[in-house]
């Protein structure tokens, strides 16, 4: 009986499963070998940099590395009681070293992020720290009365955390205090949550406009004979061959107050010479320019799906007594949903990350979260905060995929 329940054996007595694995190993190894260069390439230039960068959103060892003694001295401090003399000793020693090592600027920048105005406090104090005499707390306060301020020490405490939720909190308009609690940012400094919502709103609207404009075009292309549809396809792809900047600038020429569209509106009496429409440097401009730029990403998946929908379905529906509209809506449209899903997801995700267009034509209410990320990348150099916002975007996009999979099914998506 044991034989009957035991594993199946091959002719030479080895278990069949092992035999099968052996026989498949070579072909698997070859397949893996073929994919290896691309895999390595992706890991080196894509996965690793992204993970490395996203790591910055929660990891910041700058203060802890450059001010090791202060970090250690503050480790047990509760963040609310009076700073101790030991902390002052450690700080002065660290300042002397960092002045010598020329790392004081990095330290000052880091603490300044937690408390504005402390940069000059640090650089100034470091310059004369070598001449301080014990007791150091008094010497510090003598140099600048800000050292008597509890806030200054709290800022250092916050900055000394190596793994910190502070950046993610900041990306969500929250602030981490010295005792580790997280509170909401003051009213006039809340910006990111609002921008996340606006980014989503703009992306959603752009997706909807792309769908409304792209669907009929894709339908036309799918129902025309090959030659004509190829010509249309080239026209659809034409914008891809022009630089993004050129296209965006062209929209500026079209939409600005003295631009082509407004001139036409004036000619047709829709606007007056003194009261022209504001079509650009606001949300309207962002929506128009982004819809134009993302339209092909909607049309192409739609077209590739519609091409495969046989016209006989609609004929069948009509032969059964359905009107043109019913046969479209009940029979054709549901079959084009995978294309809509793919196109909408593509447009939406691309729109979420757009920044050149909103930067150029967005004005103040057409800005998106990516513009703030860009700002922190290029201007403020607060890469940790930029990484935290990137992390939030990534999590959100993954969530979208998950949602899409739950509702529509990911295999129900056709990109081409």
């Amino acid at each position, binding site marked *: 009986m044991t034989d009957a329940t035991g594993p199946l054996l091959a002719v030479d007595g080895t278990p069949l499963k092992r035999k099968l694995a052996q026989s498949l190993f070579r072909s698997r190894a070859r397949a893996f070998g073929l994919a290896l260069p691309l895999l390595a390439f992706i890991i080196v230039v894509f996965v690793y940099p992204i993970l490395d960068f996203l790591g910055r959103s929660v990891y910041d060892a700058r203060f802890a590395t450059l001010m090791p003694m202060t970090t250690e001295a503050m480790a047990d401090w509760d963040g609310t009681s009076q700073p101790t003399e030991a902390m002052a000793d450690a700080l002065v020693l660290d300042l002397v070293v960092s002045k010598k090592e020329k790392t004081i600027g990095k330290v000052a920048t880091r603490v300044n992020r937690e408390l504005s105005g402390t940069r000059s406090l640090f650089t100034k104090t470091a310059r004369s720290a070598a001449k301080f005499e014990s007791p150091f707390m008094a010497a510090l306060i003598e140099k600048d009365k800000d050292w008597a301020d509890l806030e200054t020490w709290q800022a250092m405490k916050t900055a000394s955390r190596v793994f910190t939720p502070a950046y993610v909190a900041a990306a969500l308009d929250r602030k981490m205090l010295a005792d580790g609690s997280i509170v909401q940012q003051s009213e006039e400094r809340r910006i990111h949550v609002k921008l996340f919502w606006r980014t989503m709103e703009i992306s959603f609207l752009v997706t909807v406009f792309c769908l409304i404009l792209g669907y009929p075009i894709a339908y036309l292309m799918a129902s025309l004979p090959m030659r004509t549809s190829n010509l249309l396809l080239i026209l659809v792809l034409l914008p891809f061959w022009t630089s993004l900047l050129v296209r965006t600038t062209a929209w500026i020429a079209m939409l600005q107050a003295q631009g082509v569209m407004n001139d036409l509106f004036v000619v047709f009496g829709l606007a007056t010479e003194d009261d022209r429409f504001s079509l650009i440097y606001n949300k309207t401009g962002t929506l128009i320019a982004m819809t134009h730029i993302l339209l092909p990403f909607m049309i192409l998946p739609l077209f590739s799906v519609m091409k495969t929908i046989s016209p006989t*379905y609609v*004929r*069948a*529906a*009509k*032969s*059964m*007594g359905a*009107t043109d509209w019913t046969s479209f809506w009940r029979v054709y449209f549901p079959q084009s949903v995978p294309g809509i899903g793919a196109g909408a997801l593509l447009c939406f995700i691309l729109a979420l990350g757009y920044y050149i267009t909103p930067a150029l034509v967005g004005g103040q209410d057409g800005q998106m979260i990516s513009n703030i990320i860009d700002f922190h990348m290029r201007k403020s150099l607060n890469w940790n905060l930029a990484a935290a916002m990137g992390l939030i975007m990534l999590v959100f996009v993954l969530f979208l995929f998950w949602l899409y999979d739950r509702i529509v099914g990911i295999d129900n998506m056709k990109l081409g």
Partner: protein
Amino acid sequence: MAEAQAKAFVEFQRVQKSYDGEVLVVKDLNLSVARGEFLTMLGPSGSGKTTCLMMLAGFETATHGEILLDGKPINNIPPHKRGIGMVFQNYALFPHMTVGENLSFPLEVRKFNKIDREAKVKRALDMVEMGDFLSRRPSQLSGGQQQRIALARALVFEPELVLMDEPLGALDKQLREKMQFEITDLAHKLGITVVYVTHDQTEALTMSDRVAVFNDGVIQQIAAPDTLYESPDNSFVAQFIGENNTLEGMVKEIKNGVALVQLDSGDLINCKPINVTKPGERTRVSIRPERVEYNKDRLKKGVHTLKAEVLEFIYMGDIFRTRLRVAGNDEFIIKTRNAPDQIRLQPGTEIEIGWMPEDCRALDA
């Protein structure tokens, strides 16, 4: 004939169709189909048969002429108001709907209430013996099952006329033969009129009351299957329907309904004149392989015989198929039944063959 026209349910009157304004795909078509008739349009691809069907369904418009349904012109009626059931080549079952929803669709658009719909759907499914498949998706069905659902869907709203566009083309041979029978059976039971399009002549012969043979936009012959097979009006029909041997020659004389034809090899044979009228005309003589006899005992006296050389003998189970060289034609085929007393011809032997004059038809060259 006049009576048949008066009763015509579907009628094409001088219908022409051109897509590009240069070539006529359908040339001056006249056709009438009686109520309850099973009519098949048969022809090679590009012969205009599918175009005719599409004009009838309303998906193409006639360039000229009139199409009448039950005596009323329907040229300007959109397809969804014609009330014609249709079965498509690849079934065209809606992939996003279940079988039940597919069948329910024509009833919904006709505003039947839910109870009626369910009853009718059930009846239609039972009719094609697919009652258990109500909630399946088309992709979960085999080709034959999909075919039945497509049929049920075309019938569920009880149309009087059903059009079928090569509905069995995607099935394998055995299933196809089974479905051929089921479709004709169902059609006769329900008393519906069927216009059926196919390029498969066996299908056309086994299923139809009448067959219209299309070629080059023109109906070559319209007749019952046996007439079509046994008395083709022209050499196209003879070639297209069933297997056929042809010999070329010239008419010597026509007397008492018999034409004397001199073949290009010089041999003389007697034929039935079909579309030859006077001596001197070129003609193509057509003989069915199974009507050729080489057993001298069975040959009637006085018939012309021809010398033949056996080139190849093929055993096909129920029949033998023998290829001969006759009057310079290397592709002359004869078919004989595999009977106990049947002779199996050996390649290389010389025999004499003959046939009844009425089985040998002198057609157009």
